[in-house]
């Protein structure tokens, strides 16, 4: 018989009575990153197994978006004239907005999608929204390669400060979407039509950031001339700043400088990161407040 003899368990120290199910949230997610890695891999594997083009599918959506906007905004509405190096400008915007929206939608659904696990096994449940955001983030890798090729073709060359700006932008969007995902996934447990709201939010995020137009068009628009503070609010949007940082990395230095980035970009970047961190903290607090009831509500 092959049964292994188990080592005897020694009685555990008497002081160690603990409350089961009281974890440390995101800290525990980090602690169990092997599981996080497997969950991300599972998601990618499940999504692309059996599809011939594999990862190509995920590139398709932003690429089609790119083509459509390039045609309509760039050619038909002549955005190419107003915005130098329009292709890379557009691609930067689409990349982060797409990352935000994909991550937001997937993390919103993540708790309900993984209800079998949530209901039966104790895990740091933040694991699921976080994994969804990471899965969305993985798709930035091939997109960045495409962007790099485009940027080089348009005469851009890399600089260390630009790289830093890009990373800061990524950090801002990643933090923000994780926080928003924690909030929305909690709501989605109780109200399954939260998804519809999230879809609407995605639309708003798309149009309220300078994805396919420039922030100067907002600043100079006749309608806003009497309300300069509205322009400031517009520029306070962390997604807007993150996109601008990405453009600082891959677009601005290659242009003739005729279209400026928002002023005080680094300061605004720092503030945007702070805002994103606050959203993350609120998301984590709300999630923890309700997480104990997830298993019975699903």
């Amino acid at each position, binding site marked *: 018989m092959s049964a292994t003899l188990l080592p005897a368990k020694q009685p*555990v120290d008497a002081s160690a009575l*603990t*409350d089961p199910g009281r974890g440390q949230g995101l800290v525990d997610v980090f602690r169990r990153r092997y599981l996080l890695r497997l969950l991300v891999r599972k998601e990618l594997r499940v999504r692309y197994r059996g599809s011939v083009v594999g990862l190509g599918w995920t590139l398709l959506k932003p690429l089609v978006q790119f083509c459509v906007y390039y045609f309509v905004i760039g050619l038909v509405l002549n955005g190419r004239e107003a915005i130098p190096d329009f292709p890379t400008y557009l691609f930067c915007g689409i990349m982060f907005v797409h990352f935000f929206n994909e991550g937001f939608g997937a993390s919103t659904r993540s708790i309900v999608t993984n209800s079998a696990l949530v209901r039966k096994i*104790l895990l740091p449940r933040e694991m699921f929204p976080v994994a969804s955001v990471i899965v969305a983030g993985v798709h930035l890798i091939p997109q960045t390669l495409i962007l790099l090729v485009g940027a080089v073709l348009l005469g851009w060359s890399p600089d260390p400060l630009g790289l830093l700006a890009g990373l800061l932008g990524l950090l801002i969007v990643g933090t923000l979407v994780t926080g928003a995902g924690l909030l929305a996934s909690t709501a989605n447990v109780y109200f399954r039509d939260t998804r519809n709201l999230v879809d609407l939010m995605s639309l708003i995020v798309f149009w309220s950031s300078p994805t396919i137009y420039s922030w100067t068009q907002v600043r100079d628009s006749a309608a806003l001339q009497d309300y300069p503070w509205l322009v400031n609010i517009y520029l306070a949007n962390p997604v807007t700043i993150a996109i601008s940082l990405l453009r600082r990395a891959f677009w601005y230095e290659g242009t003739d400088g005729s279209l400026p980035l928002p002023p005080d970009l680094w300061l605004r970047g720092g503030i945007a990161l702070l805002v994103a961190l606050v959203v993350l903290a609120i998301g984590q607090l709300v999630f923890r407040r309700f997480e*104990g009831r997830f298993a019975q509500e699903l």
Partner: protein
Amino acid sequence: MAGRAPAVVIDGVSKGFTLRHNRSLKGLAVSAVRGKDLSNNFLALDDISARVEQGETVGLLGLNGSGKSTLLKLISGVLRPDTGSVRVRGSIAGLIEVGAGLHPELTGRENIFLNGAILGMGESEISRRFDEIVEFSEIEKFLDTEVKFYSSGMHMRLGFSVAVHTDPEIFLIDEIFAVGDRPFKKKCMRRIRELRDSGRTLVVVSHNARTITRLCSRGLVLHEGRLVYDGPARTAVKYLDDSEESEE
């Protein structure tokens, strides 16, 4: 037993569920306008107190819906009590439902790693036990087949094998013998006895009186969310039998 510290302390625990009929913002708005109450409350566990000593094997008995699974979920921490407290000592593995962590689209091999990680094992630990897990489950041939093509027995074998190769102090076992064939059931029982004899704490839910009397030293009987009996396993089984008869 003297001098041993308790592994699980359940103190005055009640757990109610909301039977809500609506799960949408729209529904919430509609009922707010109509002024209808959405929810009615239902008490699944009512003021339960019990303790399980380290190394003890306790059977949990009761009719369907009496609250056994709910109590196990409270011990594992998946659910939290409304009132009272549950405290445990040491790590817990739930076999609460074997195979809960298996993903149908992944192969058996991938699932061993994923499920192992879900149950708290690290990468090196899983690699180390991998062969043992496969051998125990007897599914070598289907290791690289996706789990959705497994028979329900194979599914359960894989889940059980991973679960019993984790190394926690407390095992929670809920009705796991439903689909296994007889040889595998025997093997499971042997393994569970091994776990017991090595000093691990076991809480076992089963409707099978023989399983309870063979594995457990002590039995708790739940009836409609109340703890109605706590004593030797044999007497607990008999208690349940008698109360069933008197209800007929």
